[in-house]
């Protein structure tokens, strides 16, 4: 949404782009959904499905799994045969990939390291990744941000965070 006219793309976002045709992306999503559907159908069969007149806990997952399989097959067909969109979609700028990896790291270390050190590290690394600022400034930003989070969430709102 931030694509205003007269605005210039920053240097950090220019490099390392990958682009794919929209129809290939649609097909990839359809295959992922189809795999999920097969898994849901397979797992639901191990639950008591009941009967049509008296559905059990597996009835809905089974029905929905079949519906998802049908829909994803339809999507696959649409992307390959009927209305394949050949426009190109840019994917995974370096900054997006980096942000996602850092967020996965936060989820992993949140309990292990404690919330505040993890969040301070996240702020420092993310700000350094998105803009060419000095490391000491990024570190200061991380510490200040984590301290502010502690004041606001832990002291003011009484939120209980691991290790805080």
């Amino acid at each position, binding site marked *: 949404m*931030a694509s205003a006219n007269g605005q210039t793309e920053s240097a950090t976002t220019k490099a390392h782009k990958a682009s794919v045709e929209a129809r290939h992306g*649609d097909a990839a999503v359809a295959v992922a959904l189809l795999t999920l559907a097969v898994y849901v159908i397979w797992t639901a069969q191990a639950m008591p499905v009941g009967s049509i007149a008296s559905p059990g806990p597996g009835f*809905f997952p089974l029905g929905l799994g079949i519906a*998802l399989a049908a829909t994803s097959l339809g999507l696959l067909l649409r992307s390959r045969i009927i209305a394949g969109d050949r426009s190109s979609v840019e994917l995974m700028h370096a900054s*997006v990939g980096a*942000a996602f990896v850092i967020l996965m790291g936060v989820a992993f270390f949140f309990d292990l390291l404690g919330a505040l050190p993890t969040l301070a590290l996240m702020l420092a690394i993310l700000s350094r990744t998105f803009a060419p600022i000095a490391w000491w400034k990024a570190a200061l930003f991380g510490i200040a941000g984590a301290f502010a989070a502690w004041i606001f969430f832990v002291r003011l709102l009484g939120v209980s965070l691991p290790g805080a």
Partner: protein
Amino acid sequence: MQTIHYLLDGFAIALTWRNLLLCVMGCLWGTVVGVLPGLGPLAGMTLLLPLTFKLDPTGAVIMLAGIFYGAMYGGSTTSILVRMPGEAASVVTCIDGYAMARQGRAGPALMIAAVGSFIGGTLSIVGLMLFAPPLAAAMLKVGPAAEVILMLLALLVISFVSTAPPLKTLAMIVLGLIIATVGIDPLTAWPRFTYGSLELTEGISFVALAIGLFGVSEILLNLERIAAVHPIVPRLRELLPRRADLAAAAAPVARGSVIGFVFGVVPGVSHIVSTFVSYAVEKRLSRHPERFGKGAIEGVAGPETANNATTGSSMIPLLVLGIPAIPSTAILLSALLIHGVQPGPQLLVEHPNVFWGLIASMYLGNVILLALNLPLVGLFVSLLRVPYAYLAPIILLVSIVGVYSVNAKSLDIWILVISGGIGYFLRKFEFDTAPLLLALVLGDRIEVNFRRALTISDGDYGIFLKGPAARALLSALALIFFLQGIAWLLGFRRRNAERFGSG
């Protein structure tokens, strides 16, 4: 007369210093999240959800609703001054609003947007106040079978109005319904897709999924286009519109109020669709349609009024039926459930203070926003000067802590991050994720009512056809299927004809 009596009671609740302060806080925070790209009303409400845990249900819903309609006001400011819509419902305002700003007429554009928003917002609250009580009384007579059909109807309408292709929307709805089955089966206590994990027995956290799919994915998308912002900020004395502007804006504001109110009741992306419809209507009715896109004040007045007019009417399905029409009202639903208040037809009977307190606070909130927004426009826009390299990490931090604080489970952070990544890819390929969220919210109730209805009827599916309510809803369902089928067929034929025509 009774309505006025209840409304006065509502004002007595909303005008306590605590609730008034919560309303002001909600409106201000709503404007801020509306201004900032990457933070819409949904993320703004979720981020402050933990703050509401210590409040009573009325105070909580007053603050969250303030964020909801405050964001609608805030979104227009950046659309007009920087051509950067703060949230999706303000995209249309960019077209003529920014053109007016470039002609040195940012002040009148902002003023008309604010006044239109006020009028649209206020009229829709009047509608909410008048329509909700009789509708709730009628809904009390509806059984589980009719409730299933009603919710299926809501999901079908979502697929009907969604901006994405119907098949993609359908896939998102089914995916949402599947995610809703995770956890303990509500009728037999059988664990489904829990893999022996206690954390999964309560199901997938709606808040984590919502913030991931909308908030985190929005930030990831914005990272691809970090840009320097050069806003056009008018002086206070430049805000006053000319008499000709007021005359030109009057009819679009009136029409926008009606369009917004009607679309607000429709589940899906009603607040976004209403702005496009309003813009199209104004352009078609204009004697000079060629001015649209070049700074026509009608192109600002109509859509801005319409998007604010949806705020009141989108509360009708939530408060009366317990069905959130848009993801933002789904957060309100979550907040009410956390406080032990079940939205639906019983709400007016069991918690009249919540309902009428909310309505009164919405009247006050609209006045507060009108009074605060214009003088503080420079301050709000200066937020855009904070570099995104600092803003994005702060938004992510608040999202992570906000999501964790709801259930104190680190699993929710994993859900947030993974759904953020999935949301990024889905949105890249034009999948609309709002239907997924709404299906997730409704999934449990559809299943429980479906099975309950069959238990009542001893396995007879005829129960879904019995009763006037079920028959009326079923007819509506069939009509939508029929219209959707015709639309699909016509579109398919047109595409084929174009293909053959172009050789």
